[in-house]
C-alpha cells in the first residue's frame, strides 16, 4: 500500500469535506465531528451528486441533490436506498493526511 500525502487535518472543516483531484476522478475526504477521517468517491450512487457538498452528520453524509444518506465507513447507502460508493484508505499521522491511491490504481488497471 502506497500512501500519498494530501494535506493536513486542519485543512478540512469539522463536519465538512474537501476534494482531491486524481486520475481516477474526484475523491472526497471527510472529517467528522469527532475528527475521524474518511475518503470516498465524490460521486453519489444515485445520480452522481457531489457527496463532498453534502451535510456531514455522525459518520455519514447526506447527498446535496436528492438527500440519500451514505455511510462514510462502508460507502453504502443507508435507510431504504440501495447503492454503494468506493471507499479509499486514508490515515492521519501527526496531523498529516495520507490516502492509499496506488492500491486502487492497480485495481483499476
Amino acid at each position, binding site marked *: 500500500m502506497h500512501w500519498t500525502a494530501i494535506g493536513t487535518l486542519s485543512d478540512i472543516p469539522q463536519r465538512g469535506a*474537501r476534494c482531491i483531484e486524481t486520475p481516477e476522478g474526484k475523491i472526497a475526504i471527510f472529517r467528522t465531528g469527532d475528527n475521524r477521517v474518511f475518503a470516498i468517491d465524490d460521486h453519489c450512487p444515485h445520480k452522481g451528486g457531489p457527496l463532498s457538498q453534502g451535510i456531514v452528520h455522525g459518520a455519514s453524509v447526506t447527498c446535496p*441533490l436528492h438527500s440519500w444518506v451514505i455511510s462514510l465507513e462502508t460507502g453504502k447507502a443507508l435507510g431504504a436506498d440501495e447503492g454503494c460508493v468506493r471507499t479509499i484508505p486514508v490515515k492521519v499521522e501527526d496531523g498529516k493526511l495520507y490516502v492509499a491511491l496506488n492500491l486502487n490504481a492497480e485495481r483499476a488497471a
Partner: protein
Amino acid sequence: MTEKLVIIGNGMAPGRMLEHLFERAPDRYEVTIFNAEPRVNYDRIMLSPVLSGEKEYEQIIIHGDGWYIKHGITLYKGHRIVAIDRSAKTVTSDQGVTAPYDKLVIATGSVPFILPVPGNNLPGVLSYRDLDDVNAMLLAAQSRAKAVVIGGGLLGLEAAAGLSARDMDVTVVHLMPTLMERQLDPAAGYMLQRELESRGIKIITKAETKAVLGDRRAEGVELADGRIIPANLVVMAAGIRPSTGLAQDAGLAIQRGILVDDGMHTSDPDIFAIGECAEVGGHVYGLVAPLYEMARIAAAHITGDTSPRFVHNDTPTKLKVTGIDLFSLGDFADGDDRQEIVLRDAEAGVYKRLILKENRIIGTVLYGETSDGAWFNDLKKREVDITEMRDTLIFGQAYQGGAPLDPMAAVAALPDDAEICGCNGVCKGKIVDTIKAKRLSSLDDVRAHTKASASCGSCTGLVEQVLRLTLGDAYNPAAVQPMCGCTDLGHDEVRRLIKAKGLKTIYAVMQELEWRTSCGCAKCRPALNYYLVCDWPGEYADDYQSRFINERVHANIQKDGTYSVVPRMWGGVTSATELRAIADVVDKFNIPTVKVTGGQRIDMLGIKKEDLPAVWADLGRAGFVSGHAYAKGLRTVKTCVGSDWCRFGTQDSTGLGIRIEKFMWGSWTPAKVKMAVSGCPRNCAEATCKDVGVICVDSGFEIHFAGAAGLDIKGTEVLGLVKTEDEALEVIVALVQMYREQARYLERIYKWAKRIGIDEVRRQTLEDAERRIAYFGRFVHSQKFAQVDPWSERVSGLHKHEFRPLAAVPLTQAAE
C-alpha cells in the same frame, strides 16, 4: 358575438351560478352585475361570526375584486336596479346606468320584514341582512349598553348571541311560546332558551311588540301587555320576504316569490330568477343549499343544457352560535299517523327526537349531540325502512349492529351518496374521490377543492372524519411531529426551549434537549442553525457546516454539480451598465446558459465551483450583490411599473418594491420569502400569490400575505389597508419578523399562517401597534448582522477552502 348576461343582485346564489357558468362556457357571455350593496360577493351566512368577532369581513369574501377582473365581469357596486324594460331588453339603475341584456337573471334575495308598529323607523332600529347592518350594530355595541332583538328565530338568536359576545345587555322578544318554533319542537326550544339564558341573554316569549319608543332615537320597546324594555338598539329579525317588487313592476308572474319553473325560467323566457326571491314548486327558500342548487340549474339552462331540473329537498337547519349544537330537519309536527322516538339525557343536555311515518324518518330534531344528523338525513332522503333497527335507531349510527362502533366506523358506513355538507350539497363520495385524486391532506385543502365545510362550517367534524378515513394515519392534525429521528420534540417545543433555557449553540441544544445522535442529521441541523441565527442575532456564530450546500456557497447546485448565480436586480429594475457587466461575465467565464428567471432577474447557469469567487468579484465590481436565489431567506420582490409609467398605476409600486427589498435583503427566514408589489388591482406583479404582496390602491396600500404558487396554489389573505409607504413597510417587516420568530423551519408563510390563524397575525402586526413596533425593532436589530453581502465576503477570502480542491494528485504520483 358574445351574448350579454345581466344579473340583478350579487348575493350568494348568482355568485355560485357564475362559477358553474364559467366552468361550462367561459367565453359565452359578457357578464354585467348590478348590486345594491356597494361591494363584492361575500358569504352572508358568516355575518354572525363577523358580528360576534370570530371572523373579519375580509375572511368571508367569496369573490374578491380580482375575480371579476379575471372573468371580465362589469360589476356596478352600489347600483340598485329600478326598472326592467322587457320590450327593449334593458335594465336601468338608480344611478342612471342602462344596460342591454340578451339574458337577465334576477337574484334580488329577500328584504327583512319590518313590523308595522309605531317608531319602527327611528334611528337605532336595524334589520339583520347585510354587512352594513352588522357594521351599524358593531357601532351601537361600542357606545350603548342595551339591545332588544325582536324575533327568536335563527337570525334573531344569532344576532342576540353576537351582540352579547360584544358585551351588550341583550333581550330577545319572541311572539311564540318557544324559540325557533319553525325548526325546533317545544322541548328543544326550551333547552335552547335555557342555554342562552345561562349566557346572560334575557328571553321573553309570547311577547307581542306594540311599539318602538323614543323621541329622536330608539329608547325602548313596548310590549302589548304594557311592559317596557329599555333599549338603544332594536334589531328586527322577525322574518324575511322575497324581494319581488322589481319583477312585479316588469309584469312577471309572482306569488310569494317570482314564479319560476324547474329550469329557473320566469314567465319571460329570457329572464331567470334564482335565490331567495324565486318561488319554485310552491316553495320559497331561506337557506343556501337549495339556492345553490338553483344556481347550478340556472347555469345549465343559460348555457343551453336543459337536462337538470330542480327538485325539492328538505335542508337541515343549524344554529351558528359557538357552543350550541342543534340540528333540525323535515317535518316534526305531531299527528295520528306518526310515531316518535325520543331520547333525553338531562345531565348531558342532550335531546333527540325522530319522527316516523310508516317506519320511515320524516323529521329529526337533535339538541346537544348532533353528530348523527347526517346519518338521519341520509336515512330520510333514501326513505329507508327502519323497522329492523328501531330499538337502537335513536342512539345513532354507532350503535347499529350490537356493540357500539367508534364514530369513524359510522362515517365509514355512510354510503357514497350520503350528504356531508348541506350548504354546498357535497356528498361523501365526492370528498373521498377528490382527496385521492388531488392528494389532499388537510381540511383547508378539502374546503378549497370541494367547498365541503366552506360555508357555515357545521359539518367540519364530519369532513375531518372523512379525511382521517381516507388517509388513515397520514392524517393527524393534532399530533406533534418530532423534528426528526434524533429527538421526540417537535419544532415548536424546541424553539420554545431554545429561548427558555437560553441555548446558544447547536451542541448546547443537543446536549440539553437530549438528542439521540452525536451531531444530529441533515434535517435537524439546518433547522437548529436557523432558530439560533434568528433568536440570538449577533451572539450566535452561524454554523456553516449545518447549512445546505447552496447556502454554504451562496449559489444553487445543479444536477451536474456546477452552480448557478443570480445577482439581485432590485425590484426587477436593471440598467445598461448592469446588463453589460453580466454580458462580460458570461463571456469571460464561458457561462453556458443565461436565463431570465420567474423572479424578474437573470440567472447564469453552469458555473464551475472553482470559478464562483472570480465571477462574484466581477459582478461585485458592477455593484451586484447576491440575489439569495438559494436561501431560506428573502428572495425577490417583484414589482410592476406602477404610477411612474402605467396609466392605471395608483402608487409608485416599483419604488416601494425596491425599498422593501433593500430593507429586508439578507435576512434569514424559516423558508423562502417572496414578495411583490402591484400598482393597482390589475395586479401585474402577481402579488396575490406571494408570501407577502402589496396591491396599491388610490387610498393606500392593501397588504396581502400567505399566498403561494409552487407546490400549492393559494391566493393571499388580506392583512389590511394602510395609508402610507412607511406604514406598509413597518407592517410587512413586523409580519415577517413574527414569522421568523414563530414558524417551523421550512414552513412557508401560508402554512404557518394557517396554523396560527389569519386573525392572530392581523391582531399582532396590524392592530396592536405596540407589538408591531417591537417586531419591527427586532428585525432591524437582526439586519445589522445579516445584511452583509456573502459574495463580497467570499471574494475577500472567507471560506476559501470551499472553492479549492485540497490537493491535485498527478498521474505519475498516483501510479508510483
